[in-house]
């Protein structure tokens, strides 16, 4: 089994059933995990910020930095692998916050809000999620089985 690592502001896709896609240290950032049990393919994005208007120049070179430019690319990537929208299973992890996080540092909350808005507009249903809190998370998706796990504070859960 080979591990494919997704860095911050990056995304990876695979149709190799032996691969596992992993991302580490999800704080306020969010990982969207998509798998297609029919085509046997999976993809993951680890975006850092909600909106590309924050830095349009960066959005051109690193679209996966932002939810609004990155998430559509993840879905398009899955379609290029031959997946169909109705077969996709979508899960979400991350969006954590520092303590007392109500104001300027609520990046995690804003990351999640924009995600919900985008999914609502395009009728994507979130099958499972582990978001919020002051945790740092590691998320994995096993391409062959479509199994998704989130580990944090020494414990691993199936998503």
């Amino acid at each position, binding site marked *: 089994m080979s591990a494919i690592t997704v860095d911050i502001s990056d995304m990876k896709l695979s149709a190799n059933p032996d691969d596992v896609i992993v991302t580490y240290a999800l704080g306020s950032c969010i990982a969207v995990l998509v798998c297609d049990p029919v085509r046997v393919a999976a993809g993951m994005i680890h975006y850092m910020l909600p909106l590309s208007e924050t830095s349009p120049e*960066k959005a051109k070179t690193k679209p996966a930095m932002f939810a609004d430019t990155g998430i559509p690319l993840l879905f398009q990537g899955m379609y290029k692998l031959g997946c169909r929208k109705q077969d996709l299973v979508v899960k979400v992890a991350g969006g954590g916050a520092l303590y007392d996080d109500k104001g300027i540092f609520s990046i995690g909350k804003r990351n999640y809000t924009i995600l919900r808005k985008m999914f609502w507009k395009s009728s994507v249903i979130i099958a499972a999620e582990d978001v919020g809190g002051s945790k740092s998370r590691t998320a994995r998706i096993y391409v062959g089985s479509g199994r998704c796990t989130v580990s944090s504070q020494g414990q691993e859960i199936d998503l």
Partner: protein
Amino acid sequence: MIAPEGILSRLKDLPTLSAAAVRLAGLARDERSSAADFEKVIRPDPALTANLLRVVNSAYFGLRCRAESVRQAVTLLGLRRTSEVAAAAALAPIIPRRLPGYEMEASSFWTHCVAVAVLSERLSTELGVRRPDLTFTAGLLHDVGKLAIGVFVADSSSEILSRTREGGMTFVSAERAVLGVDHSQVGATVAEAWKLPPAIADVSRWHHSPNETPDKADRLLVDLVHVADALAHSLGLGADVGEMARKVDPATEARLGIRARGLERVASESLEEIRSLAHEFAPGAGGTR
């Protein structure tokens, strides 16, 4: 609780920053210093010379021509930047492969150090405030106390973690409650023992409690590093066992007048710089026993 002698004995075990880096930090603050003075300090240190040339020619600094000699590097980079590169070149090799207590690999700790250095500078630009002397270096070295206190944190790990995870304490408060001292206080002691400029010790000491910064210290510098540290942890740039169990001081937010959008811009525009700069050095070669 740790007896003060316990900490002091750890300091003796800690590898020291290269003498050249410490001397450069001093020279950089002396307006009479020249490139020739810098050259005299750097050239006898082959590791520093090699690192300096590599970093100067890296994408991070984006120079138009290639520096082939120490003199050229100092001229192209300027004295202040040279001393900052030297600080980074001196810190990277003394980070242990794994930090006990904080459950982090050298690469993760290093990423965090570089992230806070770059974010602190970028934040001063975003806010349009003066950039305090030593912003980069103070950001880079803000957590140096973790190198000395880690073994004690490891011994009391379950107690500290239960206070953060069940008790809702910040990690630094839990350290202080359980050990009697925290990594920021220890960091200031380390900085003093290494004879670093006082601003470095000040930032280490108050980076979790910027409101307590006394008037004689540079409060703006402490505020910038405080916010940059929180931002780095929020973004997962160097996650440790304390995870997101930390607070941002509302008084700092008010003093700096920073907005959410500004903070996000700082993050988006710093990420690649942090990556490329962190990549230039290989941490974890040596370090504490």
